[in-house]
């Protein structure tokens, strides 16, 4: 089946698969967003327990999706994996550190004799939710704004900036995208908590937080969108593979791929509707609208970066070193084999959804934060 596809078709398929995984990760950053709300939203230890334990039942899904995103990029686009991780060393190391902190914090936070105290682990959760997402945003921003690397004849990377990737955090477009993702994650976090916790006062604060954080996110989103429409992009000549700067490239991509423009618009409307529904219509299901919307917006962004003869990881230092889905991909054989493996993904999504539903059939309540059940809590 997949073996009959031509290499460019497989490359496009795999960019789609990677985009889906990356977009689902963006949705699942509701965990990180919720972590940043931990210091302001709950009042009192019991409410904090509710928030931590609600998020704590999902943190591994976000974490695993990030790992899968990395693994899928490694398998399908190994030149990106090598170039970005080996080149933009410090930005990735810092992102990793924030996720290391997250991985232990839920389990260790309330345990006696945990060496660092509960507060430290809560700060680690905050750092993961804020700095971690901000840096991921700046890293994704370089898909459009470019990075400082060159590749030699053997396609081995040399990074041309001493900050080794951290310089991306000083580019306004990248920063705006990063800050937007932080506020967006906070919106999703608040929406998730409304859906997952049955606590009137806390839910009220979550509704307010979702709305306020959406307002904070909008100017950064506007800056990102306007920049995308007017900025120069890195176009690939399909005949020669040569890369050149093209004014309004991403606007051209949107016009050439109306489906992508539709994904972007519908996605944004759904995110806003998710917040409006919980703020003004007392709905508990805003997370699902905003979640689907986030996935659609993510798909649109990744499509803009990689499709329609565009370099998805452009080099500012040497245009011809820029990575496209064609020059960065694995071989036909590997992409074919991995495509068969990817057939399992829908099955995985189904069992995750089934058990998620089973576990969340009843929302968490304050009563469950005390008594015998309390022993199992984070």
């Amino acid at each position: 089946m997949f073996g009959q596809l031509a290499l460019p078709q497989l490359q496009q398929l795999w960019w789609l698969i990677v985009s889906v995984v990356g977009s689902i990760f963006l949705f699942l950053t509701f965990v990180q967003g919720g972590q940043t709300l931990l210091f302001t939203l709950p009042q009192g230890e019991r409410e904090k327990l509710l928030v931590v334990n609600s998020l704590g039942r999902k943190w591994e899904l976000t974490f695993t999706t990030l790992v899968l995103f990395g693994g899928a990029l490694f398998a399908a686009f190994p030149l990106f994996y090598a170039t970005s991780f080996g080149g933009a060393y410090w930005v990735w190391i810092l992102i990793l550190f924030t996720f290391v902190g997250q991985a232990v914090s839920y389990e260790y936070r309330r345990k006696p004799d945990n060496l660092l105290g509960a507060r430290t682990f809560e700060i680690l959760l905050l750092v993961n939710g804020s700095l971690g997402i901000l840096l991921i945003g700046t890293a994704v921003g370089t898909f459009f704004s470019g990075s400082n690397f060159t590749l030699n004849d053997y396609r081995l990377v040399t990074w041309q900036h001493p900050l080794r990737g951290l310089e991306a955090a000083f580019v306004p477009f990248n920063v705006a995208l990063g800050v937007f993702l932080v506020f967006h994650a906070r919106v999703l976090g608040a929406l998730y908590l409304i859906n997952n916790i049955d606590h009137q006062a806390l839910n009220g604060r979550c509704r307010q937080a979702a709305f306020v954080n959406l307002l904070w996110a909008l100017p950064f989103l506007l800056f990102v969108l306007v920049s995308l429409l007017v900025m120069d992009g890195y176009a690939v000549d399909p005949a020669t593979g040569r890369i050149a700067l093209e004014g309004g490239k991403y606007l051209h991509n949107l016009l050439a791929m109306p489906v992508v423009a539709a994904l972007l618009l519908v996605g944004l409307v759904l995110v806003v509707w998710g917040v409006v529904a919980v703020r003004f219509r007392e709905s508990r299901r805003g997370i699902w609208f905003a979640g689907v919307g986030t996935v659609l917006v993510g798909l649109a962004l990744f499509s803009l970066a990689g499709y329609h003869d565009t370099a998805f990881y452009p080099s500012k230092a040497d245009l011809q070193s820029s990575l496209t889905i064609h020059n960065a991909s694995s071989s036909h054989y590997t992409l074919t084999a991995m495509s068969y493996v990817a057939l399992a993904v829908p099955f995985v999504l189904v069992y995750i959804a089934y058990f998620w539903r089973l576990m969340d059939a009843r929302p968490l309540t304050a009563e469950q934060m005390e008594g015998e059940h309390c022993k199992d809590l984070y």
Partner: protein
Amino acid sequence: MLEQIDLSQVNWARAQFALTAMFHWIFVPLTLGLSFLVAFFESLYVKTGKVEWKRITRFWMGLFAINFAIGVATGIIMEFEFGTNWSNYSWMVGDIFGAPLAIEGIFAFFIEATFFAVMFFGWERVSKKTHLFATWMVAVGSNLSALWILVANGWMQLPIGMVFNPDNARFEMQNFWAVLFSPVAISKFTHASASGFLLASLFVVAVSSWFLLHNRHQQLAKRSILVAAIFGLLAAGFVAISGDEAAFTNARVQPMKLAAMEALYDGQRPSGLIPFGLLNPAKQPGDAQDPFLFKVEIPGVLSLLATRMWDSYVPGIDDLVYGNPQRQVMGATEKVARGRLAVAALGRYKEARKAGDGTAAAAALAEFQSHQEYLGYGYLKSAEAAVPPVALTFYSFRLMVFLGLACMVVLALFLYFTWQGRIAEKPWLLRLGVASLFLGYLASELGWIVAEVGRQPWAIQNLLPVTVANSNLSTASVQTTFFLFLAIFSILLVAEIRIMLKQIKIGPEGL
């Protein structure tokens, strides 16, 4: 490519990877084995309906969770370190190596992530049988994860099912099934996972022994010991069998590693096994010195282990470095010469392609292909650079084997006295049970030292030395991250141990 070699940076990158891997391996074996033990305990609960088994299940499950969290934390570093510190490697073999990592994510991590939450928080939310299913799935997911990462590791030790593409200057997969069912991958997975079962059994025995020594939770301790001792003994037997298979495979695919494990310099027929020996630290490949200051040798046994025949020839380090025409062993000396021809021809091929000179490109490609089998050797500074650190490999191997055997004996004693109902009357054995956990950890780490130090200088056996596989980073950057990792992992390890000890002191009532 050679202009990128910076030995000091490479060594720091190696140290960082070793540090991460060894920290990670403190936690992984316990996850692999304890997940099954917890599933056994819960199965007994579901089958018998006795609340005591549920109490036992929840106690060990609590300790499992503490260990699991830090295993996840160190695990993510390992995956991304291939990119950050070994980016040339990631490009040159990513076409093959990336696949098992992605499959690990799809088939293993999501199982763990999904069912972990059900296992811990689902007692009151799902049915008893669904909960048991979730517990088993955590065990299956954890061990599937080990399978895929060890398939990847096995391919590094025996690179098969692929071809070198000179246009991209990378290796590309040709046969997925050859990679998956590589004999090294299979023996790695069975040996490593069985050693995890053994270590987890020792953990349960050690904690239970502590309870018995302090006259606490006697029923929990005795029942736990019985299950763990049976599981551990079965695992220990499997560790021994799979270890023997690993040595047999090494003899065929990594003869230099086997020679280093045995400090065998001059190959002999038959070759003896040296269970005890003191190495001569001044010994160098090619000199006339005796490799040993002292040794006890069992004649013919190495030949038997390496080839399944008493009187067969096993090549030594000198044979593998300088060659032995009589035994038809090509030495690294010749391989280095031919590898340099391959490297030079590859360079000429790239130049000719760039210049559009098809004739020159074809000639260079033909020459490259006649030597490409030895490509990796072309990057070694000398033939002697193909020799791994002998002393570290030799002593680690022996210590691992002796500690493993000792653990097996301890578990047998525990099983015997528990079966007899006299385990609580044997304080000396209970103390030994507590101590055996540390011996088990040491054996487990030593196993990886043998496997990974013994295959140096290769990132990919015979094809890609670590000096070419690393990222183009400054030494200072890698030094900084090395110490950051060391500090963070050490703090987390201390936190984990303190939490674990506290939870054990509190006992099942507190979990």
